[in-house]
């Protein structure tokens, strides 16, 4: 009995010495911020993901007319596109600022995004938390009106709370507020117009692999709203080529700034009134 135990013990000791011949590979324990979303915008609404210091993100966003216009309008593509050209700059890892111009109403907007909390790989911080603000101005000439600068302004504020749940799935919820200093419609007798809207945004991204992913966004307007407006919704297929993120999507809204989407979406996605669009995001890393 003792002989067996002794031989066994000797074997164990020798085996453990041999096992040191090559180290067992162990992953490094890293606690770095998680990349919650692929791009700084889900589709049209901002994500809690920030750019990072020294990076510049150029975006070209387009959408067309309603698909329901049919063959005669080539499912909306014959109509002129609404386009937002924008550039955002990462001033620090947690703060980015940007400027953009939308062809509708020649709306020029300035925006910022500040990341308050980064979701960490260790789970120590389980969510990404960011605030986003946007101020736009309608610069279109109005031959029949003489709007003051203040009357042309529109605003957006949002608190973006996001989490990447696993390698594939991320989601976001975002309480929002939208305000227009002045709301103009053709019919001056309408009394249902609302300057300030509250809303809650929902979004998600599902990564099929390194290159392809799907995303979804929906904004539920809360409380008072202007008549004949609907909740914006969009579904997108994203292609990440390494340098670019392309987004091909359908949406019922016609805008790329949240304040307009919330207050000015007049088509009902669930009635089949949606349009095709695509975005191109290109990030340049300029930091040495």
């Amino acid at each position: 009995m003792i002989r067996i135990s002794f031989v066994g013990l000797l074997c164990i000791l020798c085996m453990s010495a041999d096992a040191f011949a090559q180290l067992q590979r162990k992953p490094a324990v890293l606690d770095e911020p998680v990349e919650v979303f692929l791009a700084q915008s889900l589709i049209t609404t901002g994500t809690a993901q920030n750019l990072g210091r020294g990076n510049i993100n150029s975006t070209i966003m387009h959408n067309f007319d309603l698909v329901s216009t049919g063959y005669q309008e080539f499912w909306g593509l014959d109509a002129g596109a609404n386009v937002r050209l924008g550039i955002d700059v990462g001033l620090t890892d947690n703060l980015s600022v940007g400027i953009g111009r939308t062809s509708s109403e020649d709306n020029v907007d300035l925006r910022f995004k500040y990341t308050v909390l980064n979701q960490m790989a260790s789970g120590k911080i389980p969510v990404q938390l960011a605030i986003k603000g946007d101020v736009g101005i309608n610069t279109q000439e109005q031959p029949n009106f003489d709007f003051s600068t203040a009357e042309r302004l529109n605003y957006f504020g949002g608190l973006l709370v996001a989490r990447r749940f696993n390698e594939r799935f991320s989601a976001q919820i975002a309480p929002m507020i939208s305000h227009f200093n002045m709301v103009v419609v053709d019919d001056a007798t309408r009394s249902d117009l609302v300057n300030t809207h509250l809303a809650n945004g929902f979004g998600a991204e599902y990564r099929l692999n390194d290159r392809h992913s799907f995303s979804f966004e929906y904004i539920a307007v809360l409380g008072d709203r202007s008549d004949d407006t609907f909740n914006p919704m969009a579904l997108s297929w994203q292609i990440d080529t390494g340098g670019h993120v392309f987004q091909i999507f359908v949406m019922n809204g016609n805008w790329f700034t949240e304040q307009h989407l919330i207050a000015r979406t007049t088509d009902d996605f669930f009635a089949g009134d949606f349009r095709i669009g695509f975005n191109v995001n290109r990030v340049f890393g300029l930091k040495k």
Partner: protein
Amino acid sequence: MKRSFLSLILILLSGLRTTVVAQKYFTDSGETIFYSKVPLHNFSGTSNNLTGLINLEDNTVDFYVDLKSLDTGNGKRDKDMRKTLKVDKFQYGEFFGKLVSPFDTTSTDVQPAKVAGIFKIHGKEKEIEVEGTLQKTPEGIQLIAGWMLNLSDYEIKPPKLLMIKVQDVQEITIDALLTPYTEDQ
């Protein structure tokens, strides 16, 4: 009597193992840096998670680094680098070989050192020789070494920075203090 004999054997074996272990030096916090160049622009990536073992008993040298721990100081560039190196599939850059130059453990002088073995990254491997220095210190052994790595040797497609391809040749340096290896490491 039998119990005493067994105890004696165990004590002797323990002593033997201690002697063996003292010939091994280990680190899990070494520094490795790569230096990349594109025209008019250089950048580097650093990891402080270089893990390695030098066994002076049989002269084996075993090092690896988790490539996810390389930090270039730019999140987007880190992401691009990880994609280029396919780190989700090939997580480690690793070297396994032999110390082929003599090393005098009784001297505290800086001694030239040369290792030869296999370096593996991106799922590809190649025999290399690396030169550097070893120095016995009160804490253990200080290792400094470096070599030039050709991305094409490992079928790594050089990434582009502002449309310009990163040069194929990358300089790699390592700097690590290895301390006597203990069983719990």
